């Protein structure tokens, strides 16, 4: 029976989760070092060589901090909300193919936790349910300002999720299937146009969708120019103001896991995940994801912050029409393609 | 009852529907009533999917899709009315809002 | 030997007297003085010229009209209110006790002028807020520091000191430098009760 396959995918999932948590910890270190270098300073270098033990130090510090629950907070919801957003974040990585199926000890191990054929929609669904972490966190902290902060952040996440979804439709039209495995296989074909042979990565055939996806992804994870919750905490009270100690770090780390998952997704969808010029493999995926992560930090170092109405205006008035336009164009090209063949 | 068949789905759908109906009848807060209506619509979906599964037909799923679309539209307009009501109505008492009937 | 000792007479004619930034130093030829004396003969009291500065002293009630006149007259156009302060003349003269000093500047003509008016302790001064929006906080500070009430001010309350400051006005000469008592915020009189923290203190 398929108990064995179930066990294998559980093991792969377990390994993936631990790798992801490790990556998340060292993503904080990576960001602080790169941000420092961009700002003409050194960044953490006291704890261990090049400050490599900094994430562990932060973790312990946050563990030791007192975990305050405000008086008129809705206790149960207050405690559960950060867990919700923290738990949902790594699930997105379950659908990303990390490599061809290996044959270990006579068992073929697919380097992919779950090959469901609605993978892209699954990622979108996770995004839309992840909103509850924010909105319940804001509601449960009891004070009116963090509630308003939560509503504004949720409105931002929902409108950019729409743009994210629509920008992916272009890719889906070309690849014909929702499963990331097929999309990857589609991108591994080589395209011969005149003299140069190009890998059929979707960034080449879908540049607009790639740009839209990137912007929406940055906004979805509340990062860089769209980091309204962080500005909210300065101005009024963001949704996680009342949180402290390790509960606060759930939100904080969920943001980093979201960043990693979205970078992996972008690498797989647009840059042909494990497909590389010489030898295909998970290192290509890591390299591309690293580029996206650097892009996140680079944005944070340079760009100032959007205002709330500009941010929403950008989503509904600029990105959404562009996404619809992209879908129409890709549809036409696809039809013309089939029609012509 | 060992084999999974449409009756399972129907039983679940019935249970959800009844709970939704009771909620609509007994609760006072208009938003909870709203949620109960969503619950009843969802119960309908479950039965549609049950039949679609048993009879290997896709029409059930298509209708479920339409039900979801309509439920979303209805939620949007319903909540719009609630927002408009709360702002314009100076008093909260429902009786005054009955002028529509007279 | 030591450097030659510098021994110069105290020169009252210093380079400061001829800058011309306040208009002609001779009080009679100064356009503002001449026009104000014609326009407000009753209110006009005296003119003082020191270094290159010209100060006109007017009656208390006419302050707002004089400043409005100086602002709107095409030949004068003192349109920039630089400062409103007050001086407690307790030790320098008997009556009236305070001097409200209005500092004006004409941006087109690049010239300054100072208007003063004497105010006694209980009297009110016509506020300049309807003429200059910039006078709002300046007058609130004068009220806060000296207790001079500006009649017609839209929102006269303390600006620098806390609202519930009940010990009079600090910049008055009879207010002691250290104040009457240390200001303790209401509600924090008693020291905070010691709460046993949840963290167990290390044993003795």
């Amino acid at each position, binding site marked *: 029976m398929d108990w064995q396959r179930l066990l294998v995918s559980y093991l792969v999932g377990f390994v993936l989760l631990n790798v992801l948590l490790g990556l998340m910890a060292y993503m904080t270190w990576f960001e602080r070092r790169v941000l420092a270098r*961009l*700002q*003409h300073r050194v960044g953490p270098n006291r704890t261990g060589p090049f400050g490599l033990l900094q994430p562990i130090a932060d973790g312990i510090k946050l563990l030791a901090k007192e975990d305050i629950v405000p008086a008129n907070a809705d206790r149960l919801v207050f405690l559960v909300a950060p867990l919700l957003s923290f738990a949902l974040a790594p699930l997105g990585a379950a659908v990303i193919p990390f490599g061809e199926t290996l044959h270990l000890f006579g068992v073929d191990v697919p380097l992919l936790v779950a090959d469901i054929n609605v993978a892209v929609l699954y990622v979108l669904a996770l995004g839309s349910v992840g909103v509850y972490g924010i909105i319940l966190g804001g509601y449960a902290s009891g004070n009116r*300002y963090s509630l*308003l902060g939560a509503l504004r952040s949720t409105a931002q996440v929902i409108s950019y999720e729409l743009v994210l979804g629509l920008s992916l439709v272009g890719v889906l039209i070309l690849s014909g299937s929702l499963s990331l495995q097929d999309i990857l296989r589609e991108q591994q074909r080589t395209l011969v146009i005149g003299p140069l042979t190009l890998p059929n990565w979707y960034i080449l055939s879908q540049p607009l969708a790639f740009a839209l996806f990137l912007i929406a992804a940055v906004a979805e994870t509340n990062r860089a*120019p769209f980091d309204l919750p962080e*500005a909210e905490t*300065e*101005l*009024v009270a963001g949704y996680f103001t009342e949180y402290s100690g390790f509960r606060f770090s759930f939100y904080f780390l969920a943001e980093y896991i979201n960043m990693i998952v979205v970078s992996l997704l972008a690498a797989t969808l647009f840059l042909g995940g494990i497909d590389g010029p010489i030898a295909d493999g998970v290192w290509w995926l890591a390299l591309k994801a690293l580029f996206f992560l650097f892009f996140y930090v680079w944005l*944070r*170092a*340079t*760009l*100032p*912050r*959007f*205002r*709330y*109405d500009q941010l929403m205006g950008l989503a509904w008035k600029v990105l959404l029409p562009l996404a619809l336009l992209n879908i129409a164009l890709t549809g036409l090209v696809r039809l013309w393609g089939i029609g012509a063949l | 009852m060992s084999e999974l068949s449409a009756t399972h789905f129907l039983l679940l759908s019935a249970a959800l529907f009844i709970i939704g109906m009771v909620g609509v009848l007994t609760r006072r807060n208009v938003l909870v009533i709203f949620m109960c209506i969503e619950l009843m619509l969802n119960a309908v979906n479950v039965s549609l999917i049950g039949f679609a599964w048993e009879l290997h037909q896709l029409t059930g799923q298509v209708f479920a899709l339409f039900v979801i679309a309509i439920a979303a539209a209805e939620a949007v307009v319903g909540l719009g009315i609630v927002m408009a009501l709360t702002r314009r109505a100076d008093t909260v008492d429902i009786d005054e809002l009955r002028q529509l009937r007279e | 030997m*030591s*450097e030659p000792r510098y*021994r110069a007479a*105290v*020169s*009252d004619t210093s380079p*400061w007297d001829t800058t011309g*930034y306040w208009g002609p130093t001779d009080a009679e030829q100064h356009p503002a003085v001449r026009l104000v004396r014609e326009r407000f003969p009753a209110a006009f009291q005296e003119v003082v010229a020191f*270094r290159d*500065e010209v100060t006109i002293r007017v009656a208390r009630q006419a302050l707002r009209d004089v400043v*409005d006149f100086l*602002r709107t007259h095409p030949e004068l156009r003192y*349109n*920039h*209110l*630089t*400062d409103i*302060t007050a*001086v*407690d003349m307790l*030790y320098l003269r008997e009556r009236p006790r305070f001097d409200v000093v209005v*500092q004006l500047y004409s*941006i087109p003509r690049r010239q300054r002028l*100072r208007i003063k008016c004497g105010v006694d302790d209980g009297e009110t001064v016509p506020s300049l807020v309807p*003429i*200059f*929006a*910039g*006078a*709002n*906080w300046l007058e609130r500070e004068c009220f806060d520091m000296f207790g001079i009430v500006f009649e017609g001010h*839209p929102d006269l309350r*303390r*600006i*620098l*000191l*806390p609202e519930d400051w009940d010990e009079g006005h600090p*910049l008055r*000469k009879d207010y002691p*430098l250290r104040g009457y008592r240390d200001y303790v915020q209401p509600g924090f009189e008693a020291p905070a009760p010691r709460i046993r923290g949840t963290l167990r203190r290390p044993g003795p």
Partner: protein
Amino acid sequence: MIDFSQPTPVILSEVRLITPTRRELVLNMGPQHPSTHGVLRVRLTLEGETVIACDPVIGYLHRGVEKLGESHRYAQFVPWTDRTDYVAAPSNNLGYVLAVEKLCGIQAPERAQYWRMIMAELTRIASHLVWLGTHALDIGALSVSLYTFRDRELILDIFEKFCGARLTTNMMEIGGFSREIPPDLPEMVREFCRYFPKAIRQYEDLLTENPIWLARTKGVGVIEPEVAINYGLTGACLRGSGVNYDVRKAMPYLLYDRVEFEVPLGTHGDVYDRYLVRMEEMRQSIRIIEQCLEQVPTDGPLMAYESPYVIPPHKNVMTTAEDMQRHFIWVIKGFSPPKGEVYHAVEHSKGELGYYIVSDGSPIPYRLRIRSPDFVNLQSLPYMAQGAMLADIVALIGTIDIVLGSVDR
């Protein structure tokens, strides 16, 4: 033609709206708030996202500097001046010292005046760098503040070499400078003038053409020229609206008439224009410093020793009895300037900083009033904030460039 006949109003800070609807949200920002530049509290009444009324509450850093002025000798008060606007201390010293010199009718020798101008212009650049750093940080650009504070260090090193202190410099004395100028200081300042234009280009690359920066600053906090004049604004807030009033040009003190420089004026009076005006002011200051360095005589007296109000030269105090006695009286009793009142203004980096001194002939000033520029400029915040977005309040506070030390005095 500017319409001066019409008075301009005040925006009342207390809110009395017609319909006390529940949806207004009264919000307290500060006093301990990362982007209110010290202890400023702003009481905002919000309608959703739009600000209906804004009432800045100040006084948290009020130390009664003017009351202290009335119980210290003239020379003892100088350290107090650099603690009012702790970001641009030498300019404060300069303002006070010039006012006292005007009262006593003395003038510093030419070499001292040139060095005072150089120090004043360096302070202007340092203060603008602090402004740029915090202003950009409030709007979200994290890195700019790191670069501006790195360049400000160079200026602080110059101050340290000149007077031993980086922030509370206390360098100006009545009559000039009592200590000799360090020999390698001119070279250090020249080196800074060569380096700084390249640094300004770095900030401009980051901000001036940045579309998000434009979106956050263009059309925000617009002040029409008549309103700016009527609020009594000075400095970049006034010049941002296009009105040409710079104390260095309008009433040249020290030797500003021998130096050739231009006054930048904005054309739309919004946050972006004030940003451009201040960036241009930094460049003009570099020009002034370079011209001063060329024109400054390399030797000559630094102190107006001939005047009785000034501390006698140290060598003479040690050698001649008469100067020692004069030094003793100067230190213990203090010099007593003539009776009278004096107002002298200086173009501080925040605006027109004026000192109004009433003297009754005694060695202690009878009344010492500091006209601080940001106290008056801050009054325009409610005017600008009305109708603005909540996130803009931070930009508006940044564009007025306030330091609470000089607002609260």
